[in-house]
């Protein structure tokens, strides 16, 4: 059990480590040698985005080549123009129109966000209780891992029976998927506080809650953020899957409707929207993390 916990923690540590790999930022430090202040963005990452841009151009080039030269039929791969047209017709429209992307996007996003908030809050609270109490740990850990090993998407039909086809089931499935990474990561992070720091608080006769708030929770913050990073994408996944099972509105509905009339360009356009949304959510969490746990991204003493 702890084995899985530590593996999870390793993967989150890797996530953190990756975010540190920024050769430009390192160069900047070496040149400036100024008092280190919270990570400065700006020129940093420019060459990274140039490389990403070149990759995108190559990808679109291959796409055009496949459609116009290799003649891949449009019901398998629509032309970029068709996808752009579909995107345009969904975006350049009155936001209140049911034909546009705005209403479904809002519906999916708000359900995913609500599920994310509920799932991660529960994950943090239960993770804290498990980290603080061996009894709670022994009580809950077996179930946590049993559920974690279960493909949670398989529970989705059951959740729809319980919560109906409205927003409730979307929020519930998003919350279910967001819950686990936050639970495991906060548990591992809270348990990882150095004994010397706990001794420091003991030597000051700190209460248990003071030790939790002043030492354990900040110490766990990089882990918790790694969990939130996963959770935000899982919550979006959960909301879409719930919509596939039946819903009045949402990006999942946009995709299934386009699929039912073989509008492959429409499916692609919806996927582009969801991809952009995923990137935006992921990078918002990253940005928040860099702001909150700036100390962890700098050289440790």
């Amino acid at each position, binding site marked *: 059990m702890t084995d899985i916990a530590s593996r999870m923690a390793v993967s989150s540590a890797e996530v953190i480590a990756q975010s540190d790999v920024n050769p430009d930022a390192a160069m900047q430090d070496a040149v400036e040698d100024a*008092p*280190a202040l919270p990570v400065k963005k700006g020129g940093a990452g420019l060459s990274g985005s140039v490389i990403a841009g070149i990759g995108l151009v190559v990808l679109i080039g291959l796409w055009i080549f496949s459609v116009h030269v290799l003649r891949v039929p449009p019901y398998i791969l629509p032309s970029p123009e068709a996808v752009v047209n579909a995107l345009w017709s969904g975006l350049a429209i009155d936001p209140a129109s049911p034909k546009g992307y705005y209403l479904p996007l809002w519906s999916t996003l708000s359900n995913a966000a609500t599920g994310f908030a509920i799932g991660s809050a529960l994950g943090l609270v239960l993770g804290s209780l498990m980290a603080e109490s061996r009894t709670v740990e022994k009580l809950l850990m077996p179930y946590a891992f049993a559920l974690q090993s279960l493909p949670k998407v398989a529970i989705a039909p059951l959740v729809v029976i319980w919560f109906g086809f409205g927003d409730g089931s979307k929020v519930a499935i998003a919350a279910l998927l967001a819950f686990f990474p936050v639970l495991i990561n906060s548990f591992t992070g809270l348990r990882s506080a150095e004994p*010397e*720091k706990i*001794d*420091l*608080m*003991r*030597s*000051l*006769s*700190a209460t248990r809650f*003071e030790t939790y708030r*002043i*030492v354990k929770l*900040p*110490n766990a*913050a990089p882990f918790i953020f790694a969990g939130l990073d996963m959770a935000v994408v899982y919550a979006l996944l959960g909301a879409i899957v719930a919509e596939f099972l039946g819903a009045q509105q949402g990006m999942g509905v946009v995709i299934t409707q386009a699929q039912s009339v073989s509008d492959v360009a429409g499916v692609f356009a919806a996927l582009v929207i969801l991809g952009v949304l995923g990137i935006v959510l992921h990078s918002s969490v990253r940005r928040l993390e860099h702001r909150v*746990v*700036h*100390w*962890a991204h*700098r*050289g*440790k*003493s």
Partner: protein
Amino acid sequence: MATPQLSRSDSTPRVRPLIDIAKVSKTYVTASSGSVHALNKVDLRIAEGEFVCVVGPSGCGKSTLLRMLAGLDTYDTGRVSLDEQTVTGPSSKVGVVFQAANLLPWLTVRENVRLPLRVGGRHDAANERIDALLDMAGLGEFGRRYPYELSGGMQQRAGICRALARDPQILLMDEPFGALDALTRERMNMELQRIWQAHRKTIMLITHSISEAIFLGDRVVVMSARPGRILADLEVPIARPRSFDTIVSHASYATLASEIRGLLNAQEGAPND
């Protein structure tokens, strides 16, 4: 082994002892190596205002002894008391300076130094006190910085400030400068002497360095390998303020150093320094 020629300090101190460790023994059980006899009938008295350095081989239980005084560890037999009161847990009379500073990386230097007051819920007049401490340690301009922006020596100065925040009578220091380079270490020793002379705390400092122990201590206590007991309790008859330039040429420095080294080398464990 050098023949002990120096005067041993009296077992009954002139002033009433602020720290009184009487016949303390401890055995603890670890999962890996079974039961470990850590301390064997240790007797140590430290008078108010005294600066006592404890040296001993690695794992001789000197850190355990310090942790007992800090109320962080228990003992099996004997009695540990501070100011004639048996130690049952951490006390606000005691400030602890940990190895390698042990600052919280998510708090600014100032917040780190203020931590003991924040935990005690004593916010009154805290600001002037923290400012004065930071100024004394030459950290006045660094209060808003984070620990990772400070050098190791500055971090440990902040650690000392933090230990002084509650104005404790006793300062317990567990190899506080062990992680520093030799030059920074000497500078920190000078500084600690200055702080001690200004504040007149009672200090027990644990160290691996013989020169550090002689430079700082009124007395140097030498401990044996496990189970730790006290081999010698030597007075340092060198006037203060001491400096590293003059201390090495002092007649009793070499005698003391070779006696301590002899005692440590006679231990079965690896020799120190």
